């Protein structure tokens, strides 16, 4: 189990630089140059001439320069208006971190709560209503739910039930703007975790020791807390990693839908919007991909560390080996 974690750590160390390289190379290949052409004005005795100086250096030369600058703490500048990339991106990173933090919290609370609520105490199996809820939740795409919510809020305002919009549907300025995107980010992973956890719990409640505990006269709540949850928790935490990865994966779509200006929005604009100042900027695309990959692996790593920490068998095994 600890080998798994070591492997993931190794992956984090190897894959993030590779993603950075790939992103920069992709942008370079698409747009054709590393630094955009510079306008050079040469003055003569009787006038001047405007000329473009193209960046003819090969990719690796420029990339090595970039790496050297990054080692000195300089991320470079965006060429259109010479803003520092570090100064431009930090707001976006903070916004995304806030959104993801709330979404992770919602995922965990909603997912684990639904997983506990799904089991019916009478039969010890998943109640049929919750099965259909899980199926629906796993099947409906987040963006469709989001657009339905936006339409519903606008419609309620339009027919006059509310004086103003109940929740702001687009934007990034206040904390209220965060509720809808975080909810949409969290729903599908929550359903995923809940369905996996519920099926594990259901499996656990068919075991003989649960029947024995029941016949001993323990309360349902005690059986769940003392017997079922400790047995199921490691597996549920392992699936939490995949669920949180799903949340990060849909970041691009949700931020584009709700106009939440985080790194997902920036990535989408970098790839598609020609008027964005970051459009196919090799430095920015590399950084964004590396950040995205780092978050995705780190989330998975965190979940496996948690599941190892919770699992008594894994803990003893790793202690013995270490």
């Amino acid at each position, binding site marked *: 189990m600890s080998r798994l974690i070591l492997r993931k750590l190794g992956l984090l160390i190897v894959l993030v630089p590779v993603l950075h390289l790939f992103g920069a190379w992709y942008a370079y290949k698409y747009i054709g140059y590393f630094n955009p052409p510079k306008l050079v004005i040469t003055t003569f005795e009787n006038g001047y001439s405007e000329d473009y100086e193209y960046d003819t250096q090969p990719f690796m030369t420029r990339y090595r320069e970039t790496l050297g600058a990054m080692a000195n703490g300089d991320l470079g500048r965006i060429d259109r208006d010479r803003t520092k990339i570090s100064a431009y991106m930090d707001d976006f990173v903070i916004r995304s971190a806030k959104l993801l933090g709330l979404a992770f919290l919602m995922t965990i609370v909603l997912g684990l709560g639904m997983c506990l609520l799904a089991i019916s105490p009478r039969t010890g199996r998943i109640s049929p209503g919750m099965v259909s809820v899980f*199926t*629906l939740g796993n*099947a*409906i795409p987040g963006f*469709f739910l989001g657009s339905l919510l936006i339409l519903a809020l606008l419609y309620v305002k339009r027919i006059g039930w509310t004086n103003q919009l109940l929740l702001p549907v687009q934007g990034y300025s206040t904390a209220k703007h965060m509720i809808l995107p975080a909810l949409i980010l969290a729903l599908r992973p929550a359903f995923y975790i809940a369905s996996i956890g519920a099926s594990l719990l259901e499996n656990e409640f068919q075991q003989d020791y649960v029947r024995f505990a029941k016949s001993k006269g323990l309360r349902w709540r005690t059986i769940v807390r003392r017997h079922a949850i400790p047995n199921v928790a490691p597996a549920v935490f392992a699936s939490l990693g995949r669920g949180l990865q799903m949340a990060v994966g849909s970041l691009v779509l949700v931020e584009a839908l709700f106009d939440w200006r985080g790194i997902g929005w920036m990535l989408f604009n970098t790839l*598609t919007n020609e008027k964005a100042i970051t459009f196919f900027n090799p430095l920015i695309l590399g950084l964004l991909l590396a950040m995205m990959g780092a978050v995705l692996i780190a989330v998975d790593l965190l979940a496996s560390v948690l599941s190892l920490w919770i699992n008594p068998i894994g803990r003893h095994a790793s202690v013995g080996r270490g």
Partner: protein
Amino acid sequence: MKNLPLTLGLLITGFMLLIAIFGPSLAPHDPLAENRSFRYEGKFYGGPPRETLPPFVHPEHPLGFDDISRDLLSRLLWAVRPTLILCVIIASVRLVLGMAIGGITGFFGQRVAWLLDTLMSITSAIPILIIALGYLIWTNGTALVIYQGTTPMVANKAGISAFLIALCLTGWVNSASVIQGHVQKVLQAQYLESALAIGLNRWQIAYRYILPQMLPLLPMLLASELTAVTLIVAELGYLGYFIGGSYVYSDFTKDVPLPDIVKQKASQPELGQMLSDFFGQYSRSPWVSVFAGILMVLLLIGFTLTSEGLRRQLDITRPRRWNWRGLFQRKPSKPNKTKLNQTA
């Protein structure tokens, strides 16, 4: 019902299949015809300068018009077929790739198993949506209208092959790992030792023992692949990447030489395309995204339920009463008592 998810899933999928097969012939109107000036009960409806016909108003256009005044019901009926064909092709290619690679890595045992594990972790580090988006932009350019002077050039020309490659680049890993795990489990069995002992070589063992045990997994894997593919196709469509070309809709509201309303609209109807441009049309015709989304969600629910139901069928720990393989099994022939008695 013994297996409610499977029954419901097959019903919904069958319904969508019926729409895909018979929908175009049932469509009441031409899905491409624009009703630029359409008069009903004293009001003018039509393209962008005018209002759009809302749903449930006109008896001949029950779902109304889309935002450039084409009949929505006909477009929806036409739209299911290309989406379904696209998803089925991509899902089967992903499944075949996963089968081949997972089978081979499973067959060679633990020495190459780490390769697939590492690949799995690597692909989980890059969301497939970003990979697909990157590939589609790489080959076909951005989906936005590009202006050359005053002439809008249409940029979106992604075909089915671009989608196929974009979604199969890393999509096969999931089913490959499932197949690999299953092959490894089968390889532990003792009858394989006896198969080796009677002199079968590796390929014969693979063909006679392992492959037949993979076949029951296929429907479930296909259904779950279909769910994943449909979801990504829907998301790509929402972001503006869909199959089928688009054309430029233009109209004049003032007496000027150049048109002042220019929109890039898809010509051939497709579900992913109808989900796109949500903010472009939600003030004029929000129902387009809603109806297209409902069809997409029906498709997704059908696939999800089918895969869940098939998974339950294969799950031997659940109490089972009915088996789909039982439909095709020949009943054991009854011993013919009279004959036995005669010989006795």
